[in-house]
């Protein structure tokens, strides 16, 4: 069982992902935008972050950069985006080593990715490398 934060501005997608991950036995936290998500993980770090990119306020890229630098996500990040055609976004995500699922996505594929990240924790490997050496509130 992992502690997973799902960040998505579309309520139907948010509900669906929560439903799937809960069925897999995980603890799921929900946020509708980047700022709310950052506050949540700063309050209590999570194992896995599942996030959209296009969101009001703080978008997904800023959120990931922020929480990974602070060490608030322990195992890994999965990004759901319909902006996969943007080379700049693709390059940044590849550089950070996060998992990406282009929208429309398959919930079963998302479940597999989350499970593989959760399993990597059990194996003791480190899936998330800090973006910067800056020590944040979660370090």
């Amino acid at each position, binding site marked *: 069982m992992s502690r997973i934060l799902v960040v998505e501005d579309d309520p139907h997608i948010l509900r669906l992902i929560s*439903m799937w991950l809960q069925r897999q036995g995980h603890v799921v936290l929900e946020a509708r*935008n980047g700022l709310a998500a950052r506050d949540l993980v700063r309050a209590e770090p999570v194992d896995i972050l599942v996030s959209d990119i296009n969101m009001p306020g703080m978008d997904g890229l800023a959120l990931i950069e922020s929480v990974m630098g602070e060490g608030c996500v322990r195992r890994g990040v999965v990004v759901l985006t319909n902006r996969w055609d943007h080379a700049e976004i693709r390059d940044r995500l590849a550089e950070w080593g996060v998992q990406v699922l282009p929208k429309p996505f398959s919930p079963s594929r998302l479940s597999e990715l989350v499970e593989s990240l959760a399993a990597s924790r059990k194996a003791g490997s480190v899936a998330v490398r800090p973006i910067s050496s800056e020590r944040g509130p979660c370090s």
Partner: protein
Amino acid sequence: MSAEQADLAPAKPGLGRRRFGCDGLLPEAFGLGFVGVVFAGVAAAYLICDYAWRQETIAARQSETEALAQTWAAQLGSAGDGDGQVINALGQSLGGFPQMRSLRWTAPDGTTRFEWPPSLSPVAGMPARPAAASGATGPPRIAATAPVRSARGEAPGSLRVERDAPPAGQRAFVLVAWGGAAGLILLAFAAFYQRLRRHLRPVAAIERSLTSYAEGLEKELLTLTLSDSLGAVARGWNRLIEQLAEMQRQQQSGCVGDASGNVLARFENAVFRRVLDRLPFGVVCVPPDQRVSYANAAAAALLGRPVNEIVHRPVGESIHNPAVQQAIAGVQARAGAGLSVDQTTGEGDHEATLRFRVLPMPAPPAGGDAVVTVEDISQLRETQRARDNFLYHVTHELRTPLTNIHAYAETLTQPGFDDEQTRKECYNVLISETRRLSRLVEDILSISQLEVGTARLDVGEVDLARLVRQMVQDNLGTADEKKIDLTLSLPPKVPKLKGDKQRLSVLLNNLIGNAVKYTPENGKVHVGVETSGQRMLIAVRDTGIGIGPEDQPHVFEKFYRAADDAVQMLPGTGLGLALAREVARLHGGEILLESERGKGSTFTVELPISATDPVEARER
């Protein structure tokens, strides 16, 4: 070339040269000869008359002298030998006698008895001077001799009288005077003629050139090389001929029509030139010397300098792009098949993009020239950018409901989600997202049709009061969920108008739906209808989040959504207001916006009551 010359020469070197006046020499020489002959005739007539007059005068004076000699011989004879009184009286009278030269009375023995002038006389027995000696010097003279006879019949000698002949020196003077006058007149005539000829020369040259040109004997008109003093005719002609020569040069370079040189070709070229000057894109011809031979009006406008500052100058002065210059050189060397180069200048609103196309001249004999077309593709770029933007937004907006449909449909197939509640939830989302997708496609289609003018209005009589009431009713549910006070005020009598009921309902629904969506809980939305003259005003007023001044000019643009978080948090495509405005405009109306951030917005739809012409609206 001096001012005294009036030459016909081609405008450009190498096209031949003709000198005026060669074929006009004969009449000029004839005229001068005629004047000379007249003067010579007059002089000859004078000489003949003068000669006759002199001969007559000599004869008359000879006879007069002979008569005088006889008279005086008789007087001396009758007076007797040695009568001193008669001789003295004669001697005194001779002094007042005209043209008298000398008088001598010679005795039979050869001695001089009396001689006049007095210095020669009287010495009796003095030998007489020989007559030849006295006549050898001085002016010609007339002499007469008469015998002196005494009363007794003796012969006491002879009397010789000599007088001056009429003077020959007078005739020479008159001749010189005559000759001088004639010479002066001839000189004056020659000077006048020369000046007149110089002034008439350009006129004659123009006339001859035009005649030859019109008859087809000459293929080109010749320019006049004259001094400025010859006035506007020569200058005007030269300007005209220069323009013509330029056109012919362009013909020969192949840029404008053919160079066959016939009148029809010239006419066609003039037409082509006018056509080229009216093209919306620039045309520039560049011969191998890299000096522009032709540029049309559009090229001048696009390159930002007048035609006369482009033509005859290096192409690099007007087209600064090195890639274009290389392409021109390549095409001229037949090494390139033409090239298209885009050049963007300026930034922001001043950004402009020119597209240069470099093409080889299509046919010999004009090979070696390059034609450059210049287009302003800024508008095209903007259109492409708008189209790309539109497609980006459309795909983005389509992905959201598609993602939901895809995910929920897959969920329904999974064994772990087969409980009744989950299935019901999935079906509800599928239905709502399918509707959302359908509505989105409908909106995109509508706005595209409205924009390109292919939309057709289903025009009929619309009961606006009823329509507004229905739209308010449709939004009451959502308003109630947010505890928003949605109210409607209608005047007692609302006139019916002509319009498309379906599209007007979309307009009203979008405005009222937006007002409810962007108004926080416990807010107010009021819909009011009133008539103002021939217009009907439908105002949708809310106490919502409002629209900032920076967003107000853009809210009617497709897919535009304010960057405000309060807006981004709520679902929306940014198509509703764009569609509403298009529908209003299609009905001959407009939508006005008043808004203040944090206080609310008022969208007012103005629609004409009776002026709406469905045909006009459809054609718009």
